[in-house]
C-alpha cells in the first residue's frame, strides 16, 4: 500500500536545501500569493451607490473577473470555516447553547440564500459608505450563507459522536482542552467536514454568479466578476460573451478542484476513522509534489513549532489528586429557567411578527404568498420526480459498470458544481424562440444545476453494491423488475435520498433566480414565491421580501421534516448495507 502523507507535526529535519520539486512548487506558491494580494487590493476601491462600475465584455478581461469571483469564494469559505469552528464547538460543548443554537441553524439552512442577500445588502452598503467594500461584503455574506450551515452541522455531528474510548483515553492521558481539540476532535471531524466544504463550494458557484449583479432599490450594482459579466452579456444580448463566460467558468472550477480540493482530500484521508477495504485511496499530483518539496516541508514546520510552544501554555494544571478540581455545578432549576426564558423570547418574537404582518402587508397578501409557495412546491416535487425517473436508471446503469463510472462520476460532480444560472440565457432564448409556456418551461431551470446531485449519488450507490450480493442475485436468476425490486432499489436508496435532499434544497434556492429570467429587455415571470421575492427585492420592498422569505423558509422546513428527514432515517435504519 503506497501512502504519501504529511505528518501532522514535522520534526525539524536538518536538511532544508531545495530539491527538484521546489522548482515546481515555488513559482506556484508565489503566484498564488501575488494573485491574492492583487485581488484583495481591488476589493476596497472607492465607490458610491449609483456609480457605474466599469465592466467590459472583452473576453481578455475574463481571467481578472474570474480571479475576483474566486477571491469572493475563498473569503466566504474562510468565514464559513471560522463560523463553523466557533458555532459548532459551542453547540456541542454547552448544553444551554445547544438548545438554542441548533434550532436556529435548522431555520437558517432553510432560508433561501438569495434571501439573505436581499435583506442584508442595504445594511452592508451603509456600513462602508463611499467604498465598494460594502457591496463586496454583501456578496461574500451571501456566499457564506450558502456554505456555512452544512459545514457547521457536520462538525457538530462529529463532535457529538467522538468514540467514547478515545474520549476516555484523552481524559486518562491528561489532554488539555486545547490539545484535545487539535489532537482528537478536529482530526476526527475532518473527513466529513472537508467533504461538506467541497459540497459547499460546489453549490456556492451558483450564488457567486447570482450575488455579483444585484439590484438594490432600483439601482443595479455590478461587482467585477464572472456573474456580472454574464449579467452584462444578458443585458447586451451578447451570446458570444456568454459562451466565453461558460468556458472560463469550466476552467476555473477545474483549477479549484485540482489545486485545492484534491490535495486536501488526499491529505485528509489519513484522518478517516475506519477504512473500508477495497476503497480507493484518493491521490493528488499536487499533494505529492508538495510533500516532496523541502521548502514546503520547512514551511510546514512552523505550525509544528507553534504547537510545541502552545503545549506548556495550555497544559492542564490539575492532577486529579486531593481536593477535587472545580466541579461543574449543576443547578436543577437553571434548566427550567432557561427553558422558560427561551419560550418567552420565542413568544415575543411571534407576536412581533404577527403585528408586522398585520400592519405592513395584511392577511390577503399572506394568503397570496402561501398560494405562490404552493405553486413553487408543486414545481419542486414534479421536477424531482421527473429527474429521478430519468437519472436513477441512467445512474444505476453507469454505476454497475466501473469503467464507465470512473469517467462519468467526475463529470457529474463537475456539472453539479457548474453554476446553472450561466445557462439561463440559453433557456430564455429557446423559450422565446419556440414561444413556449413560461409557467412550464422556466421550471426546468430550477433543477438544471441540482439534478446532478441525484445522478452522482445514484452512481456512487450503485457502484457500492457489494459484489457478493450481485453474484448471489445472478446465481438465483434475479432478472428485470425483480432484480430492481429486490437488489438495486433497496441498495441505492440511501444514496438516492441523500442526492434528492440536496437537489430539492437547491431547487428551492434556485427558484428565486429561475422563476424570473430575462434576456435584454424581455423578462419572463413564472407564478411562484421565487419570482415574488425577486420582484420585491428589485423594488426594495422590505416587508414583502421578508414575507416571501419567511413563507419559503416555512415550506422548506416542512418539506425537510415531513418528507426528507423521515426518508433519511428509514434509509439509515432499514436499507443500510453494513
Amino acid at each position, binding site marked *: 500500500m503506497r501512502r504519501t502523507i504529511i505528518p*501532522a507535526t514535522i520534526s525539524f529535519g536538518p536538511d532544508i536545501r531545495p530539491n527538484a520539486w521546489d522548482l515546481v512548487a515555488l513559482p506556484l506558491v508565489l503566484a498564488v500569493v501575488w494573485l491574492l494580494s492583487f485581488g484583495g487590493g481591488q476589493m476596497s476601491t472607492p465607490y458610491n451607490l449609483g456609480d457605474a462600475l466599469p465592466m467590459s465584455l472583452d473576453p481578455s478581461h475574463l481571467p481578472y473577473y474570474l480571479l475576483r469571483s474566486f477571491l469572493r469564494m475563498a473569503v466566504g469559505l474562510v468565514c464559513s470555516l471560522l463560523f463553523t469552528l466557533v458555532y459548532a464547538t459551542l453547540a456541542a460543548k454547552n448544553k444551554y447553547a445547544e438548545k438554542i443554537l441548533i434550532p436556529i441553524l435548522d431555520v437558517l439552512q432553510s432560508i433561501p440564500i438569495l434571501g439573505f442577500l436581499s435583506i442584508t445588502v442595504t445594511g452592508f452598503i451603509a456600513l462602508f459608505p463611499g467604498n465598494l467594500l460594502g457591496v463586496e461584503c454583501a456578496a461574500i455574506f451571501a456566499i457564506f450563507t450558502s456554505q456555512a450551515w452544512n459545514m457547521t452541522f457536520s462538525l457538530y455531528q462529529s463532535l457529538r459522536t467522538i468514540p467514547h474510548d478515545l474520549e476516555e483515553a484523552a481524559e486518562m492521558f*491528561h489532554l488539555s482542552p486545547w490539545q484535545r481539540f487539535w489532537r482528537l476532535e478536529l482530526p476526527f471531524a475532518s473527513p466529513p467536514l472537508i467533504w461538506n466544504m467541497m459540497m459547499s463550494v460546489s453549490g456556492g458557484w451558483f450564488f457567486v454568479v447570482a450575488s455579483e449583479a444585484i439590484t438594490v432599490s432600483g439601482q443595479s450594482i455590478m461587482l467585477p466578476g464572472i456573474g456580472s459579466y454574464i449579467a452584462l452579456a444578458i443585458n447586451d444580448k451578447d451570446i458570444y460573451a456568454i459562451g466565453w463566460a461558460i468556458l472560463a467558468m469550466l476552467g476555473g472550477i477545474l483549477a479549484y478542484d485540482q489545486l485545492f480540493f484534491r490535495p486536501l482530500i488526499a491529505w485528509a484521508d489519513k484522518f478517516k476513522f475506519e477504512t473500508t477495504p477495497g476503497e480507493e485511496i484518493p491521490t493528488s499530483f499536487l499533494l505529492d509534489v508538495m510533500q516532496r518539496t523541502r521548502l514546503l516541508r520547512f514551511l510546514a514546520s512552523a505550525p509544528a513549532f507553534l504547537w510545541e510552544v502552545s503545549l506548556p501554555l495550555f*497544559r492542564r494544571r490539575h492532577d486529579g489528586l486531593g481536593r477535587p478540581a472545580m466541579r461543574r455545578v449543576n443547578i436543577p432549576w437553571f434548566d427550567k429557567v432557561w427553558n422558560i426564558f427561551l419560550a418567552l423570547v420565542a413568544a415575543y418574537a411571534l407576536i412581533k411578527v404577527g403585528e408586522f404582518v398585520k400592519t405592513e402587508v395584511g392577511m390577503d397578501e399572506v394568503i397570496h404568498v402561501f398560494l405562490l409557495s404552493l405553486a413553487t412546491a408543486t414545481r419542486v416535487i414534479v421536477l424531482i420526480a421527473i429527474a429521478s425517473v430519468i437519472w436513477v436508471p441512467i445512474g444505476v446503469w453507469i454505476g454497475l459498470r466501473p469503467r464507465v463510472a470512473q469517467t462519468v462520476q467526475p463529470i457529474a460532480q463537475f456539472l453539479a458544481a457548474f453554476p446553472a444560472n450561466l445557462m439561463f440565457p440559453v433557456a430564455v432564448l429557446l423559450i422565446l424562440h419556440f414561444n413556449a409556456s413560461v409557467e412550464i418551461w422556466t421550471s426546468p431551470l430550477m433543477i438544471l444545476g441540482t439534478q446532478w446531485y441525484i445522478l452522482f449519488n445514484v452512481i456512487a450507490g450503485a457502484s457500492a453494491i457489494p459484489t457478493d450480493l450481485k453474484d448471489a442475485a445472478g446465481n438465483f436468476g434475479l432478472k428485470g423488475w425483480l432484480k430492481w425490486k429486490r437488489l438495486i432499489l433497496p441498495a441505492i436508496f440511501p444514496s438516492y435520498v441523500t442526492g434528492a435532499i440536496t437537489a430539492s434544497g437547491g431547487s428551492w434556492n434556485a427558484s428565486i433566480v429561475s422563476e424570473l429570467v430575462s434576456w435584454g429587455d424581455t423578462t419572463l415571470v413564472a407564478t411562484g414565491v421565487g419570482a415574488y421575492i425577486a420582484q420585491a427585492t428589485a423594488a426594495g420592498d422590505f416587508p414583502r421580501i421578508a414575507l416571501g422569505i419567511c413563507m419559503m423558509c416555512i415550506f422548506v422546513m416542512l418539506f425537510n421534516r415531513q418528507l426528507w428527514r423521515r426518508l433519511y432515517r428509514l434509509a439509515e435504519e432499514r436499507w443500510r448495507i453494513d
Partner: protein
Amino acid sequence: MTNTADLLINLTGVRKAFRTPDRSERLVLEGVNFQLAEGEIVALLGKSGSGKSTLLRIIAGLIKPNGGSVLYRDKTISGPVNGISMVFQSFALFPWLTVKQNVELGLEALAVPAKERDERSTKVIDLIGLGGFESAYPRELSGGMRQRVGFARALVMSPDVLLMDEPFSALDVLTAETLRGDLLELWLERQIPTKGILFVSHNIEEAVTMADRVLIFSSDPGRVKAEIPVNLPHPRDTESPAFKAIVDEVYAIMTQQPQRAAGTAAEPLSLGYRLPEAAPHKITGMLENLLDPQFDGKADLPQLAEQLELPDDTLFQLLEASRLLGFIHVEQGDVHLLPAGRAFAEAETAERKKIFAEHLLHHISLASHIRRILDERRDHRAPENRFLQELEDYLTDDEAERVLDQVINWGRYAEIFEYDYNSGVLSLPEADEETDGAAPPPSESAAAQ
C-alpha cells in the same frame, strides 16, 4: 496489609449508582473494599455487567463514585492521576497519529520538551517490541501490534499503577498469549517502573496465569464476592494440578447461586431480570455436548469450556440461560443435565421448540408477561415500546433494549410470538390466532412486503 504506606490503591465502601433523569437509580457497585499493594498483580473477574469496568474507571479517575473513599497513596482520587495509567480493551489509539505520536500523547499533555519526549518514547517503543514501527499509523498494524502501542502509551508515563480493561480480549488466542507473556516478563524482570497492576478479565485461565490475587465480583449490585490468592511461582504451568485446582475453584465460585439454598424451588424472576445473552442454537449445542459419553449429563466446568472452545463469559451466559430455563443445575463448579434438558437435547427440531416454549413461558416471567398481554389484546398486537417502558423501570435504556431483544429472540425461536422489525410491533403467530377462535382476524400483521 494494614500498613497503608505500602498501599497504592485503597478503596473503602465504594458505591456507584447510575441515575437516569426521571427514574430511580440503578446500583452498580456497593460496599466495595479493595486494596492494591506494591508489587502485586490483581485480576478482577465477574459476569458482564457486574461493575468491574466501572470500578476500574473509578480508580482511573474517569468516573466519580457516589460514596466511599478512593485513595491513591493516601490521597483522594478526584480525576485522572499522573501515577496511574490505563490500557483499553479497544486499544483507543488515535488513528491519525503515528505510533510515536500516539505514545507521546500523554507526555505532550505534561508539556515534556520534544527532546525528552523523543528519548522516553523511543526507549519504551523498543522495550515493548515496536522498534521500526515508529512512523506507522495504527491502521497499518495488526491487532496485537496495536495493543502494544496501547501498552507503550501507558508505560511511557512511568506509571506506579497500570490499569488494564480486558487488554487481551480483542486479540486472538495466540497473540494474546504472546503479549501476556511479554508483559509478564517485563514485570517480573523489573524492566518497567510499574509497582502494581490491576486488570479486568473475562478469561479465568488468563486471570490465574497472571495474577497474585483474583477478585470475583457478584452482580446487581457489584461487590467483591470472593478473593482467591494465587501463590504459584512464575512461569505458571497451566497443566499442573495446583493451577487446575485454583481454576476449578474460580469456576465454582463464579457459578455459585447467591444465597439461595440448594433444593428450594427457584423464585420467579422479576420482570426486569437481566436475561443473559444466549442464542437458542448455542444453548442446544451446549446441552447436546453434555449428552456426550465423556460427560454423560455431568461435566466439570473447565473441561466443558475446553470442549466447547468458548470464551468464559459466553459460557457463563449459556449456563445461566440454561439454568433459568430449567435445563441444567450448576453446583460446585459442576453442571448437571436435568431431565428436561436431556429431553430437549435429544428431541427433534419441532419437539425441541415445543419444550423450549413451555420452559420459556414457565420460567421467564418477561416472556409469559408479553404472551399474556398479546393474548388479552383484541388484535393480538402490541408495540415493543410498551414493554421497553416497563423494563426501563428496572434497567438502563440500553440494557432494557438488550433484554427485550433477547426475549424476542427466544420468543421467535419458540414461536410463541412474532416481531416485525419495520413497525416494532410484537404479535401472536398466525397459527395461534386461528386456534384462538374468538379473536378477529389479524388486521395486517404481514403488511410490510
